[in-house]
């Protein structure tokens, strides 16, 4: 579990979409779901609740979801009118974006919990791509990243180039390009595992968590 508040905020920012999708699937209209997700993180930070994400208590994914469920239950007792904007925005600057993402998606028969898990898996994969981007930037290899990242991760709508195209863009032979892609993929996988390790309390749970995420994706049948 990351220690600093910044790291936690970052984690929340990266994983807010799964929670938002959960609220939507629970039947909350878009703006309510935004408010609720935002309100949730705000209350978490205010209460320092993330400290309760006790490393001895298992997975961050489950913790976040169950906290959110409790929050939703509490909220439904109160008036649900949380105002948007204000000082809470620091968490999600692009609050409009998730809705467009959501609306593009197919409806399906998944439960909110299953949706959440599948989205969580996708968020993890995306986060690993971000980490890779940061590392490439640090190493002064941003240009390389621009080409190679199309071979990993789960970014929609952009098909990877052919090896030949990649080789041309990288200015290397096809064989070298293949090797680079292979290494890049390995690097990505290692970061992915690291990302998973940040959301479980015990390294021994990493594999179990990965399997659970695979199961969630299989159940989602592509509606991710």
């Amino acid at each position, binding site marked *: 579990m990351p220690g600093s508040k910044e790291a936690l905020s970052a984690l929340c920012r990266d994983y807010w979409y799964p929670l938002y999708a959960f609220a939507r699937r629970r039947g909350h209209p878009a703006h309510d779901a935004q408010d609720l997700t935002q309100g949730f993180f705000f209350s978490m930070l205010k209460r320092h609740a993330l400290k309760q994400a006790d490393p001895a208590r298992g997975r961050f994914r489950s913790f976040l979801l169950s906290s959110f469920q409790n929050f939703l239950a509490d909220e439904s007792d109160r008036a649900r009118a949380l105002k948007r904007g204000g000082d809470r925005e620091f968490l999600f600057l692009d609050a409009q974006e998730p809705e467009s993402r959501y609306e593009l998606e*197919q409806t399906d028969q998944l439960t909110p919990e299953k949706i959440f898990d599948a989205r969580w898996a996708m968020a993890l994969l995306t986060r690993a791509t971000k980490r890779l981007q940061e590392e490439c930037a640090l190493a002064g290899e941003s240009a390389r990243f621009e080409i190679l990242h199309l071979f990993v991760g789960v970014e929609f709508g952009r098909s*990877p180039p052919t090896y030949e195209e990649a080789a041309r863009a990288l200015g290397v032979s096809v064989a070298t390009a293949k090797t680079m892609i292979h290494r890049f993929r390995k690097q990505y996988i290692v970061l992915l595992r690291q990302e998973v390790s940040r959301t479980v309390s015990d390294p021994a749970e990493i*594999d179990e968590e990965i399997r659970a995420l695979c199961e969630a994706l299989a159940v989602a*049948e592509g509606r991710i």
Partner: protein
Amino acid sequence: MNEPLVTDPGDEISACPNCGTKIPVSLTPERCPVCQLRAALTVNLTSDSANTEAQGLANGVQDLTQGTIGSFDHYEVLRGSDGTPVELGRGAMGVTYRAIDKNLRCPVALKVINVCYLKDESARPRFVREARAAARLRHPNVASVFHLGTKNEDYFYAMELVEGTTLHQLIQEKGPMPVPLALEITDQVAAALEAAHKEQIIHRDIKPGNIMLRFNDDGAVNVKVIDFGLAKATAAASSLNSEPGLSVPGMFTGTALFASPEQCAGREVDIRSDIYSLGVTLWECLTAKVPFTGTTFEVISQHLNSPLPLEQLKHIPLPVVGLLKKMLAKGPDERQQTPSELRSELCELKTSPSRPVRPSAGKSHFGARMWLVLGLALVIASAIGYFLWRVNPRLGSTSSKSVAVLPFDNLSENKSSDYFADGLTSEVIYQLSKVGDLQVTARSSVLRYKNVPDAQRKPLKEIGAELDVGAVLEGSVERSDNKVRIVTILYDAGTERRLWGATYDRQLQDVLTIQGDLAEQIAAALHARLSTDQRNRLRNEPTLNLSAYDLYLQAKALSDLHLKDANDRAVGLFKQALQQDPKFGLAYIGLADAYIDRVKRFNGEGTSLDSAIDLCQQAIALDPNQLRAYTELANAFNLKGLFDRMEAPVSKALELAPNDWDANRMAAAVSTEFRRQKEMYASIRKCFETNPFDSWAPYQLALICWTVHETGLAEKWMQRAIDLEQNVTKRQLMENERLVYRGDYAGALPGLQRLPPDVKTQYSAAADLVLFCTMQVGDWPSVIRIIEARADKDSPTNLMRLTLALRGTMRSAEARQSAERMVTSAQSKLSTSKSPRWMRFDLAVGNRILERNEAAFQYLRELMTGTGFPDPVLALADPGLDVFKSDSEFQTLVDEVNQKNAETRSQISQIEQSFLVAK
């Protein structure tokens, strides 16, 4: 005609060619999220990735030792609540796991070569040979092998997962079995061997542990031989395939207890060796003992040299003893030479027991008492129906008057008119449920047979057995413009004989009359009684307006998706249908159902229920015999908490359709509220009959059985419920919940703590069970922590728990204060609380702690002799009641409860008997 609203949501989805997971097409296979995640598993992080990054990352990579078992091709090995793979068995060559076929989403048995064999070069071709041999076998008495694959260096094969019990377990549990049953099992194993023999395959490890049994409802047994893992192609077959035989003379691979003398001696074996092993198996069936015991060496030596201990068989009919002696002859030449020969002897024994088995050597004598004994055994066999049933509650009354309507195939060119075929299926099911004399499988249990590719369709016999029905209706719908063609065939599920069939080539308009006609014809074909009233009801057309009907079918298809957006659209369409025909009763009910769904699933406003009630009443006004209007009305009352008002619609629904799933479910809801356990059991038991793939009924039945301490039956039902539960997390919860009911609180706790706290079954939440077990193990400091962290920590029941914990940690003064708060709070909430039973419970416990015994016992009596406990299953185990343990009055009340439980147990037994008799 309106534009169809149901589109195929799978347009943009394709399957990853590597793992089979469905992914959006925009993610090319190399970016399949599942493959990428899998690559991050320990087992897949190969050494070449051990760059600095990898070394720096979680030390866990090295710590993990159990990463070697995971997914194999498109099979994923299932894990138990403790995270370890679920093992089905271990053989000489490999371990068999329970796994899931991720493409077909069905369970399979997956055999993986034993790790210790990996070092052995000879093991691999042998393993492949076994799988190939086993895959050639296709026989009803053999568990089929259907996939052979490799992963990294490992070989694995997938085979049919046979649910049921092993013969070994049965004998362990029940002891010696009646002769006819033993002969029947032997005969079916022999049939498997017969098929194997034709393929020149021998099993080499026939033993009770490799024989799976399933009992049908009429007590008939179905046997499957599993684990042809030691089977080897015989030398003859090998030479045909120009591959060398892999026999390893002298290498003992079978189980010594069941091994033939030639196996023990390390000589070449053939099918006659299996006959010997089957003889030992039959011996154990009859006596619950094997003929030779001792150390492996002693057993081998006895198989080779010692005479059979025939005195163990003194109660066994002589012809059967003769058969056994021949099967167990030391020399293969003296035994039955083929499984077919064995079968014909078994057949003679079963049909004409006066004729002796032809001895191959020596003479046999058959006493006159043989008849008597066999006759007696047969009587016993019929009497053991109940015994058999208890072995495997795959039960029910397979009556020829039970029918399952499989989802109609949509043969229309326009696939988007699926809703039409689906709608017709639902309507035919609904029409048939109105025939009181018929038992119709509920829609949710037949849905699993929808859209199955032709090649993977199960034989009707199998479907009939799975659904426990006597007849199966298959159909197809083809719609083009204003014409519709409906083809239906009704089959006898036992024999696959065609009972009735019809082709309707009609104008679309006629579809409104076809359903009623279909239901009437099916009822006639199954000889179901149909009263004039019922017949007239079938002939009532739902509407005369085709366009309204089409809107209705579209709305119904959307509504059945149980999604928020679809629900909104369904409501709109139902309303349109009603505008077109304000007398369309089913549309009122459909709309009511959609409103109810809003409340049940989408946090809808409670006023939706009032609308639903109003709509149902309108439907009833239009047609006082509209079955579904009554069940939906009851459903709405149930959700509103108006339990008293449920009784009338429920009894009317049951009068109209005594076997209807919804009607019985609602009846169960009423009985549950009023704690009428016998009625509850009877209603839910009927639900199980018509919806055998739904885990709800067996789970509820298990709870009732545990409540009244009918533990054996409870275990069977719970196992059934767990087997049916599709959600892995819920299944894990149920497995741990079962431990709680068994009283193994310490054993349940770790598994429960690993689960997400909010995961729920229909009855229990993981968090609640964690709290209960934590109290049971006396870990009071943790109890305090758990309650303090709860949002509703000040609720009377949480205060009650807290009080107990404070007492448990010797903080008496605080405990007293807490008890005072609890009593005051519970008192004020008693009249308005949604769970007055808990308030009474809290008041009883609180007052007793405060030594206000009169008040305490008043509440306790109300609970124990009146309203019933809030949580009847765990009631008497609740640590709250410990405060009463020393009171004699409490003991008297407990005795009364126990007395009542005993009555319920005998009532349950009667109900089960009635289901047996019905078949």
